[in-house]
């Protein structure tokens, strides 16, 4: 449960990493200015590795929750909608953590061991 205080990974990996799914977290103009701790340049180098399926679900559920709550913020449906957002955000965070350990080269080589990049030498 203890959520990560510094879950942002940087590009300073010891070997070249295939970059997956980089998008600018500040692309949407509706983003509010962040707290000083997260607005530093350090966090702009985030490799966002949430699988797109879950990421889409999260953003959809947020839109849905905002719409449902526009009418009545105290209603059961509104509360349930935000709970869904929380659940999906947690799932996204776990998926990110799971992917953090995965090396894209190793993943590729599991399926394609005969390619040049994946050759191993045992002398």
């Amino acid at each position: 449960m203890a959520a990560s205080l510094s879950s942002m990974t940087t590009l300073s990996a010891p070997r070249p990493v295939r970059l997956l799914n980089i998008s600018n977290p500040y692309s949407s103009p509706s983003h509010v200015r962040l707290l000083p701790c997260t607005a530093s340049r350090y966090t702009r180098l985030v490799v966002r590795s949430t699988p797109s399926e879950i990421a889409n679900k999260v953003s959809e559920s947020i839109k849905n929750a905002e719409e449902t709550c526009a009418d009545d913020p105290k209603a059961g449906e509104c509360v349930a909608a935000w709970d869904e957002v929380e659940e999906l955000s947690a799932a996204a965070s776990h998926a990110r953590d799971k992917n953090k350990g995965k090396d894209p080269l190793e993943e590729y080589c599991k399926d394609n061991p005969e390619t040049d990049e994946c050759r191993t030498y045992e002398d």
Partner: protein
Amino acid sequence: MAICTVHTTPSLSMPNTHLNQRQVIFFTSARKNQFFRGQNRAFTVSCSADAKTVVIGLAADSGCGKSTFMRRLTSVFGGAAEPPKGGNPDSNTLISDTTTVICLDDYHSLDRTGRKEKGVTALDPKANDFDLMYEQVKALKEGKAVDKPIYNHVTGLLDPPEVIQPPKILVIEGLHPMFDERVRDLLDFSIYLDISNEVKFAWKIQRDMAERGHSLESIKASIEARKPDFDSFIDPQKKYADAVIEVLPTQLIPGDNEGKVLRVRLIQKEGLKHFSPVYLFDEGSTISWIPCGRKLTCSYPGIKFTYGPETYFSNEVSVLEMDGQFDRLDELIYVESHLSNLSSKFYGEVTQQMLKHSDFPGSNNGTGLFQTIIGLKIRDLYEQIVAERAAATAQAAKV
């Protein structure tokens, strides 16, 4: 599941007295006996079929499974915890050699659409099947395998069940481990992770700000919307917990709202049979300790410990509190050498466990330290219970 103990028998001609148990006798070859000259090395393995599982409950907000506490806990017992091989890839269960971790979200009676229709959150007891939870935890405790449903967090649906074999240690983790009284009575030890609102907010910002679609308002709205249900259903469980890890903002930095330096309190219930609280210097007294000084140099903001007896929801407790951060290895080992009743097997075990997982969040502050200490305490509790049961079985055999 049976617990098997290995005894050396002086010779094969002298039978073992445990007549009502199945025995396997191994006789090692003469060559291997060179170290034990003059002694007949024969080993008897006796298994008692009525050994039961030790059940630990862990209450924590939102999300289950691969959480840091679980990984630290299973690491104390040895081995890494993995999802069951060959099963549903979205399973929330973790299995290691000695421990199985079950996520209580699997006992949701309503899936995501069901909850949306009824307008209830996952925190609401109406969305959970406590009867099934009680039945299955009871069966696992008695050593029977169960078919546990799976709640898929990605799709929000209830998937077909998976088979869970009874382990030595069963950890049930989720929102309501101590909510139902029957389940509460099955727990041998219970822990509650109490994160204060400010810290929760800071952590959720860290977690969700990179997520497309999330903004500060949406995170805030999500926390606010869940708060009433959380306060009425989840929070009251902390009075039943044997240990509470409370995470608060630091008092060392005035006006800090970043949530990086934390003040963590380990609230330990007194008077429990197999649990002796960790203390500082003198049990039962009130201590305030700043280790940084002449022997140890720390960087800003330093470390501060307090220890003392208190009352928590009308229970007698001992509270060990750490405020600040560890920067270096020697700070950690220095602190460990001054804590007592850690239930560690050797000097420096806590430090070693913390270093093993230095990439886990909380490894430099009280959250990691107290989680590791609780892990050692649970190991000690398990060994005490097993020894007790073995003694009881031996008694029963003699009679």
